[in-house]
């Protein structure tokens, strides 16, 4: 089953490139630490999912590139072509001469309807190349103009045209200290629209990934490429093939479907976050060894203390004693120490994966009262190592991790809205105050739902 990726805007296109590159390099990595035969099946599975074949044997990414400025798309295309290992399809991109100027309304109400037909045609051509379409992976920023506004528009169209296909939006949460003044407006509009049309929102926070680059990768001058590579690594560690069940050597056919079935069946809880371990520079990797017990202990503590990386984990946070009313869950004003999960999916890759003990993730205290661990926790495994890591673990979690950032963004946007700042920039292009109010209502509801788990 195949996934069609839609890369939108500068951010979406740059990340999309890194994702395909990570997927390709991993599946052709000689250090897979498994038999040749198994490696071939793994490669074939990855390829069916993300690439289609052209005559001369170079895999072509199942992707559609959309931007309103030609610069980034041209860079992306040539970077892929230069790699010589894989490339984008010749007729799979759409670009224009003029951007959206960080105005969500312009992307959504002007660019969207104007180019709807061309973009949807491109997507349809890509869909027709798949024997079987599992769904769409839509990569976009949350706070800008083109990626977020047009992205919300395209997602809505996909929902109308391909209602049975799955839609996962990979969205980039802006830096808390972003320089775009209307980023909070753009963010609430993006989130509220996606909440209506998408099945899952996979969120990456720029701040968190930046810290990973600084602390774990020891990068001094952090560029967007560094950040995007970390992000692509995390996505690859989730979406590369895994065994379809315990003891089986067949690879899972529809990971997107199973992931969603496990994590986001409830229409009010669609926010997903990824954590992974270990994450380090290649130099350090050569001198490190890991045990499953150690990795999983850290990963669990990262989950419950809501830390995005291995370093600086708060080991004081403990799950609430079961049977007692959970204090930490009650109020937002009180600091959230313990991160309650709705559902978790752990993905383990590497040596002796069958010996890994996941008991720590099956503790009912980690989850809400209305979902037992047997429904809330799942694990995917493969013996095939991922991208030079002898052992690695990733965690996709539907939890309270975004509650604070979301509440902050909604609060800031509300303050601006209350003083009617910059609203005319949006009403000018057909996004009315009523639309803002609808967005606030919806997101307040989401905040409340996540708060009262």
């Amino acid at each position, binding site marked *: 089953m195949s996934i069609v990726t839609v890369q939108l805007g500068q951010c979406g296109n740059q990340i999309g490139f890194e994702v395909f590159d990570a997927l390709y390099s991993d599946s052709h990595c000689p250090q897979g630490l498994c038999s040749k035969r198994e490696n071939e099946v793994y490669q074939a599975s990855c390829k069916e999912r993300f690439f289609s074949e052209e005559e001369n044997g170079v895999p072509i990414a199942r992707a559609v590139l959309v931007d309103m400025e030609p610069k980034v798309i041209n860079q992306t295309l040539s970077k892929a072509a230069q790699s010589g290992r894989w490339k984008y399809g010749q007729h799979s991109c759409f670009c224009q001469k003029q951007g959206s100027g960080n105005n969500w309304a312009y992307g959504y109400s002007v660019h969207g309807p104007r180019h709807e037909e061309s973009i949807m045609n491109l997507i349809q051509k890509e869909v027709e190349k798949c024997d079987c379409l599992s769904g769409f992976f839509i990569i976009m920023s949350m706070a800008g103009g083109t990626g977020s506004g047009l992205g919300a528009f395209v997602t809505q169209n996909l929902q109308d045209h391909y209602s049975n296909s799955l839609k996962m939006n990979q969205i980039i949460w802006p830096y808390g200290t972003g320089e775009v003044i209307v980023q909070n407006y753009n963010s609430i509009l993006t989130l509220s629209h996606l*909440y*209506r049309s998408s099945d899952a929102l996979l969120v990456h926070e720029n701040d968190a990934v930046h810290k990973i680059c600084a602390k774990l990768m020891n990068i001094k001058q952090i560029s967007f490429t560094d950040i995007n590579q970390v992000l692509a690594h995390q996505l690859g560690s989730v979406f590369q093939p895994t065994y379809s069940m315990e003891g089986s050597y067949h690879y899972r056919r*529809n990971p997107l479907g199973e992931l969603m079935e496990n994590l986001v069946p409830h229409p009010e809880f669609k926010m997903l976050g990824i954590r992974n371990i270990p994450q380090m520079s290649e130099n350090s990797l050569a001198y490190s060894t890991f045990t499953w017990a150690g990795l999983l202990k850290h990963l669990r503590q990262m989950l419950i203390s809501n830390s995005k990386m291995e370093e600086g984990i708060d080991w004081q946070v403990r799950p609430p004693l079961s049977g007692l009313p959970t204090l930490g869950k009650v109020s937002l004003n009180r600091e959230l120490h313990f991160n309650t999960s709705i559902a978790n999916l752990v993905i383990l890759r590497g040596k002796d994966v069958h010996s890994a003990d996941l008991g720590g993730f099956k503790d009912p205290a980690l989850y809400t009262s209305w979902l037992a661990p047997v429904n809330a926790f799942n694990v995917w495994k493969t013996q095939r190592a991922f991208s030079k890591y002898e052992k690695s673990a990733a965690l996709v979690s539907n939890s309270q991790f975004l509650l604070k950032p979301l509440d902050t963004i909604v609060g800031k946007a509300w303050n601006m809205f209350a003083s009617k700042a910059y609203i005319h920039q949006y009403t000018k292009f057909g996004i009315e105050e009523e639309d803002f109010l609808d967005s606030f209502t919806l997101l307040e509801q989401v905040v409340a739902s996540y708060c009262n788990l």
Partner: protein
Amino acid sequence: MPAHWTEETALKGRGHRSLGRRWRRVSTRSVIGRGPSRDGTGAVIGRWDPAAAARNPRKVSASCMGRRRRRVDRGAAVGALPEAIAALSRTLPAGPSPEIFRRAKFDRPEAAPALWQLLFRVLSPLSANGASAPPAQGEPPSTEAQVRVVKSELHSQGYPRRALAQLPEDGSQGSRELLLALAWLLARGPLLERLLAQTRVRLGDEIPLCECEALASPGPPVPRVEADGPVDIRHLQWLMGKLRFQWRKLITSQQEQCALLGKIHSYTRGCHSDRSLGHLSVAETELLRDAEGGRQLLRRLESENVCLEAALHWRRQELVFWRWMDTVLGTCPPEASQPTFVPRIPEKGAGEWELVARELQALQEELRGAAEPRRAAWEARVGGWGPEWSAVQRASREAVGLELAALQRAWERGGAAAQPHGPCRLVKSDAGASGGPGLRAAQVIEVLRSREACLEAVLCQLQRQCRQELARLAGALPGLIWILPPGR
């Protein structure tokens, strides 16, 4: 010839009591023993069946002859009975040995487990899905579960004997009752044909045209899980969402299957020896690729042949079995007659329909007579309520009218085009080649579309009702804001 069968036939001669019930059978082949036997001694033969006689002159002569010849015939029957039962056993899934049947006649407990299991296999709704694999996948259900399924399934099919329902659930007893139930099932309908059709080896790519059979058998009873306390609505929403995702996954994999089938059909065009088919099916393509699969298929075909031959054999010999079953019935205590519940619409004569129609008409008139004075009284009472009331009345009359019209449309649509049933072989033919036998995909699509439209109309109506109910609830709590869930 085993000795005990001789002893068995000797037992038959002891006459039998008048039976409350007789084997009813549509087939003319086995009309033996329809009425109470007229002579108290020679119960084995029962009534002479002219149809069977015409087919089997040798037997006719035997049964027409005098006492001496009859004894000879009995001797032949002694051999024929175990043979007939063996043929039946070979036809049934996991059929037990003839010895089990013999013991069941004497209600011996050691015969019970095998018969419970046989009836479970025969009745199990799982086997109705047309899968060629045996229904018992994974863990076979416990004996208690099997017994419960057999009892409830027989009850739902209208099996009248209460003695069976009272048997203990450990499956240790009741072999004679089970034998009677099996015979009842055999006599009642095309049981063997259905079973044989289910286990048929399928070479073509088949597609079920309607789901009516799947809908008719509700599947094994789902164990009820009692919630410990109040159920959180979010848990239900979660499960509902999960179900939705599974639906979408199912649709995706069906689409994939269609795409792949299409590929196989177009790649193998002109390969089939049968010109009218023109291309290979999945099973046939698999045979070309995998020799071991071919051997397995051969084995399956051979065993299916054995089954079919056994079925033919049984058809020729079942007469003997039914005679013997009469004696089985004779050995068991009669039950007080009770109304038999038969869920199928019995094929009755036109006279009976008229009777029912007249009765219905009478009832309708009675109803009208009772309702009209009441309505008049009611209208007189509310007459003074003014235009508001008449508006409400008009609205509800309109709503009823709409619903009635929708129902009528649905009925006409369902009645007009006889919906195609059963599995069909999928064959891809050239667009130009029209006509020819078989169903066109377009026809099937049309039927499905109209069915979809009907279902959608019903869904819309239900949704409207829900919305009205929600609006009513929202109106009842003025301080509350209702926020509809996003999406989906």
